[in-house]
Each structure stands twice: as C-alpha cells, then as structure tokens.
C-alpha cells in the first residue's frame, strides 16, 4: 500500500471569530498531501480532545488569536494527556507573544508558529516530528 497520509486536526479554541488563517492552513496542508480534519470556530478544549481521540490524528494544530492561549492551550494538552493521547504532536499558531512560548512548551505545545510562517515550513515540521506509523 502507499504511504499513509499524516492526519492533522486543525481547530480554533476559544471565542475569536477569525478563522481565515486556520482555513488557509487547512487548505494548504491538504495540498501538501495531509488528511486535514477541520472542525471550525469556537471549539472548547473538550471538543478538541474528543475530535483528536476519535479521529486518531497525528497532529493537533491550534489557531488562536484571542489572547486566551495561556488558559486554553494548556487545557487542551492536559485533556489530551488524560485521554492517553500523549504521543500526539500539539502545535499552535496565531498571535502568541514570544514571552509566552517557553511556558506553552512546558505545557506540551511542541511548536508555536507565528505570523509569516509558510505552509511549507509547517508541513516540513509535521513530517519530521509525528510519531512513526504502526504496522
């Protein structure tokens, strides 16, 4: 069989209504050959963890522009861990100040992609950091 595509969940936690970036990224990753589950706006951490579990994704990409990242992102990573999804790569993008990045990494967010990151860069990072596929 051909190589298994990497499966990515793109979700927007919280209340900001700006999903252009998330949609452009979802579409761009599709064009890079990923299988992208797009769940839309206003996701609770609970919804994101459930979607990640049921879809058995390799990567969770969180887009957040509301400023609530220090509350919401650690909540997502904690829920994922509680459900046994500690091998899922969690990344974030949007408007996140550099000063917050160390604490987010501490909380289990593997990478933070700021404005100006290209889709090719995101794709390359995912390809080199996801868990190896099972036989």
């Amino acid at each position, binding site marked *: 069989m051909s190589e298994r*595509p990497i499966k990515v969940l793109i979700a927007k936690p919280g209340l900001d209504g700006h999903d252009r970036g998330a949609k452009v990224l*979802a579409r761009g990753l599709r064009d890079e050959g990923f299988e992208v589950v797009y769940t839309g706006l206003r996701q609770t951490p609970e919804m994101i963890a459930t979607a990640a*579990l*049921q879809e058995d994704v390799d990567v969770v990409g969180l887009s957040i522009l509301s400023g609530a990242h220090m509350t919401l992102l650690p909540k997502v990573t904690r829920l994922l861990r509680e459900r046994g999804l500690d091998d899922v790569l969690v990344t974030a993008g949007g408007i996140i100040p550099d000063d917050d990045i160390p604490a987010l990494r501490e909380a289990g967010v593997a990478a933070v992609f700021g404005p100006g990151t290209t889709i090719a860069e995101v794709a390359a990072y995912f390809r080199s950091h996801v868990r190896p*596929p*099972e036989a």
Partner: protein
Amino acid sequence: MSEAGVRAAELADAAVAGDRRALARLLTAVENRTATAEVALRRLYPVTGRAHLVGITGAPGAGKSTLVAALIAEARLAGRAVAVVAVDPSSPITGGALLGDRVRMQAYASDDEVFIRSMASRGHAGGLAATSTAAATVLDAAGFDLVLLETVGTGQSEVEVAAAADTTVVLEAPDMGDEVQAIKAGLLEVADIVVVNKGDRPGAQRTAAQLRAMLSANGNPRPTAGAPGEAADHPRPKRPDVLVTTASTGEGVPALLAALDRHRAAGRDGLADGARLARAEAQVWEIVAERLRGRLHGPDAGEATASTLRAVADHRLDPYAAADLLLASLAGGRPRA
C-alpha cells in the same frame, strides 16, 4: 498467535469493551489496511450484524452533515448509541484531503455514546472509501446501535453506499431539477427513503410531490414481506418513501428516524436479504481484488506484471489480453522456492 496478532486481538477486545481510544486506533488500522486490521476484523466479524447501518448520500451542499447531526440528536433522545463514518474526497493530485463534516457535529464532545470518524476516500470512487464498510463493521462490533455512513457529495451514479448500508437515504435539495431528473436511473433508484431537505425553502413541498409522483409511477407493486422469491426473475425498482426535513431546525427528523426504524424492521423480515448478500459480495470482492493486486505486484510476479502493463501502455498488447495473461500467470502459480 504471533506477538503482533496478540496485540491486534487485544486492540479489538478493548474496542469492543468500550475503550474509545482503542476503537479509534483500530479504525486507523482498518483505514491503512494493516495486518492488525485483518486480525481484528476476523475476530470481530462474528459479533457484528447487530447495528442498523444507514447510508446518507446526496449532492454536495444538500445538507448531509446537518441531517446526520440532527439524527444523532434524535437518536440520543431515544437513548441509542450512534456512530458516524463521514467520508470526504481525497485529492487525486496530492492525496491530501479536507475532512470538514465534523463542523456540524460538535455538540456531543462529552457524550461517550456518540462516536464520529472522518475518512478520506483515498482514491476510491463510488462515494465511500474502500474501507468504509470495514469501519462500519468495527463500530457495529463496538456496540453502536445506529451507524450512519455519510458519503462524499455525490452526483448521479455513486450508488456504492446502497450495498454497504441496510437502509439508504438519498438527500435532495428543493428545486434541484425537473421531473425528468427524478426518473433518470442511478442514485434515486437505490434510495429506500428520499429526503427533501431544506424544507423551509420555497419549493420543498413541490419537489417532494414531484418525487413522490415520479418514483411511484412505475406501476410496480411494493414488494411484500413473505414473498422474497417473487423478484428473483427480474429486479424490481424500489418505491421509496419521500419525506421533507429541515435538518437545521430538526423539523421532520423524528419522522425520518421512525421511517428508518420501519425499514429496518421490514429488513429483518426478509426484504433486505438481497442487500445483505450484495454487501457480502462487495466486501469479499474488495478483498479478492486487493489480494490479487498484492500477488501480481509481489516478489514472484511483480516483474512480469510490470512488463505486461508497459506493453499495454505502449499499445503493443490490448488490455483484455493483458488481463488474461495476468490471470493465467496466477493460475499457473509458479510455486515459491
């Protein structure tokens, strides 16, 4: 049993016992057609056949995902466990896919009795992924009473879902075409239930009336339970119920669930026996084709297969002769050293 076989069996048992993480991983194995999946599916098959598999199909934008969400809500009111397999197309160019059906099905994140799985079609034509039926089998084994199979947005002839499902629902939007569209062969013919969705739009009732008139005007009596042999000489068209729903508000959805239940009950009395046989054939044929392909590209025959295909590509050999050659090479069965 090998170590991998033991792990596969453990995964299958955990999925059946209610471990949702195990269920999700097993579905991934099924999608990737791994050795794990085969072991697990063989183990689970005897406990399947209990769920009601309902196919939901129709044109892009007709409201399939919204209707699925409304059906989940209605089934949960009745206390039934619901699973969804939602298929979206893979890119024929890059192999990537955008799976967007969950957007409308978010309300059940903390409800363990609802399980939603998106699948990319991965190059399979016909409206489903090649492994969608196997995925539904796994969800059946995991104890879900209602399993909804949502196809990609379909055109006129993606009728594969009818073989995969016990009951096939074809969704239409109001004013999608005139009466001639309703009497063309294809998708509408495989419907057990036709739903005109977006019932709050003008034209919905008129569309439903036209569909009722055209789909029941074929003069064939509705086949009756207890006379399963009658249709054997010549296949009879179905005479589907035509319902109107507004999935976004839930209007008409209780009546749809009731119609699904009636169709399921009728199926238990023998009407759906043909559907079950067709599904068995489709499943077995899929595996036969996969295994044939595996052998033809395997270490024994791979080179000969490649040169035969090259000959067809170069127009030195016609495709029929090539097929006969390949089949003969398998039948000859050069034994492995």
